[in-house]
């Protein structure tokens, strides 16, 4: 059985946010509900300050703490879907415990104050379809049992590794390479759109897969591995770590 994994090469990533935009369009997310975004950090002080950035999807952890804490099994790890962590919007009670338990901050409760004005939910209000909002264009793939589509109010949403695309790939697909015409339609939106080709997607359970070879050859690491969550997302290259938090107004005295 496949275990879907993502590899992000930080030496190639330019921080352009095309992945963030593609994800938002593919999944009809609201501003701020960034299932995938690129975080920017700075470390050190002038003249040796560095700027770093880090694309961050859901890590689809092998041992996901969000799944353990969910009191209704609304969030679950689906091994038959490559180990993707889904939220069943029919079961989620909106307690937000999974958002507390996720070490990566990649879960969203869109029923909150809008990030930007005007509020898109007021422009495209949810109607009888019970959606939180109803934009004119919507992905035709909707499956609330997996948290795909536009959510109802009061539930948690997250990245699904574009399960609605990957699940349609021919059986036995190992590498989801956007340059391969046979599989490009099934590649997750963030991977397909990545201009510098910093993202790779494939089967972590197959030793021959491109993702496994990259992890092996270039020493892929997982973020915050000390949490024991064991992400299925690996990072390559320099800077695959997050600087310790420091308030911006304090400056770096190190």
């Amino acid at each position, binding site marked *: 059985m496949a275990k879907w994994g993502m590899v992000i090469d930080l030496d190639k990533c330019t921080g352009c946010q095309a992945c963030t935009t593609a994800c938002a369009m593919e999944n009809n997310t609201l501003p*701020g*509900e960034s299932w995938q*975004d690129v*975080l*920017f*950090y*700075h470390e050190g002080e002038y003249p040796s300050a560095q700027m770093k*950035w*880090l694309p*961050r999807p859901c890590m689809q952890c092998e041992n996901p*703490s969000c799944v*353990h*804490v*969910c*009191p*209704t*099994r*609304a969030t679950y790890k689906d091994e038959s879907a490559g180990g993707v962590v889904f939220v069943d919007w029919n*079961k*989620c*009670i*909106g*307690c*937000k*415990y999974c*958002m*507390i*338990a*996720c*070490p*990566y*901050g990649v*879960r*969203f*409760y*869109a*029923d*909150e*104050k*809008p990030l930007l004005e005007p509020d898109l939910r007021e422009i495209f209000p949810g109607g009888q379809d019970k959606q*939180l909002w109803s934009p004119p264009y919507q992905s035709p793939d909707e499956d609330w049992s997996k948290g795909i589509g536009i959510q109802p*109010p*009061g*539930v*948690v949403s997250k990245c699904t590794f574009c399960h609605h695309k990957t699940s349609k790939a021919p059986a036995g697909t190992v590498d989801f390479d956007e340059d391969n015409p046979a599989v490009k339609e099934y590649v997750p939106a963030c991977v397909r759109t990545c201009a510098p080709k910093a993202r790779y997607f494939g089967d972590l359970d197959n030793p021959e897969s491109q993702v496994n070879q990259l992890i092996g050859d270039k020493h892929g690491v997982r973020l*915050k591995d000390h*949490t024991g969550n064991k992400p299925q997302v690996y990072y390559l290259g320099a800077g695959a770590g*997050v600087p*310790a*938090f*420091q*308030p*911006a*107004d304090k400056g770096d005295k190190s």
Partner: protein
Amino acid sequence: MSNNNVKQGMAGNGLLLLSLVVFLVSLIYAFMQIGSNGHASFNTSSALPWGQPIATYLYFALASSGLGLLASLPLVFGFKQYYPVAKRCIFLAFIVLISGMAVLAMELGNVFRMLWAIPLNFQTQSAMFWMGIFYALDLLFLLWKFRKMESGEWDSKTSKQVGIASFLLVLLASGNLALIFGMMSMRPFWFDALLPIYFYFTAVTSGMAALVFFVYLSHGFRRDTMSPALQKLMTGAVPKLFAALVGGTLLFIAARAITGMYSNNPEINLVWTDYLFSSTTYHLSLWVGLLLPFIILLNSNLRNQVNMQLLASILVFLGLFSERFFFVVGGQVVPLFKGTWIPNLIQYSPSATEWSLTIMGWSLIFVLYVLGEKFFNLSAMPDNLDQDA
């Protein structure tokens, strides 16, 4: 005793009316806001998902557990001098928990779904699943114990067994509530194996504050209207235990603050230095809400005065409410993995809707309490006790 009980007279009606009006106004306001704007009417966000309604629930749930533990002093451990407050403790524990649950219900995204989704999915790995089980059973056993007392069964075998079961459930419920926070290793400010002990102790402190306040409220803020046994208790064991509890609470907070500030980990250290100790409200809650009542209660002359006991109870009430707020929010203020999108600590102050839920919870306690005074004899105790006193 019941004849002296002012809550059964005009004053009781006035208080009932007032608290009912406050309750209904806050409930209707919250309903309208949540109905029209959803949870966008809260100031919580995906970066800081748990706000004041959760802190309010936590405060009430723990105050209820504290009252349950206080009731176990006479009912389980045989400290007979506490019998005069046992029934009131059990009743208060029940209504305070009901109020907490009402606030929590308004906070959840899909509250009615919870009723079937939690029991049917049986997710035993989740501390929140156990919270539902333990607090539901806690509520049931409090009610059962109250029924036993109501029928005058203080010392029967069943009554004692129910009392012991209720005591154990209180321990399980509040201990498990602590673990909801304490097991979160990705939230280092909360992560603490001994958090259940901290919660037990501070729960009893908040329970004691509630007890002292409501005992006086029931007796028109006078001691001479109390039964001799109750008078003896309120000038003896209660203020002494209250002092010890507030002192112990301060010790707990000091231990957490010292280890937190010593730590290099910014997710703990910065919470203390840049959030808690840089907040005037937190300083007020610590020094005026806890240290001042502790000093008052330490003085043997002051601690026996009605006004001072009342003052201490109100200050501790508010001080610990604030503690719960800063505990819940403090675990989330350091941005988790957000980089320059959130360059500083996450700002949070409750919205009007969130305040209305807190006020709703407080007023519901008063409504239910006055009703309890009207329909039950909350001062009841075993018959032979007054003669002993």
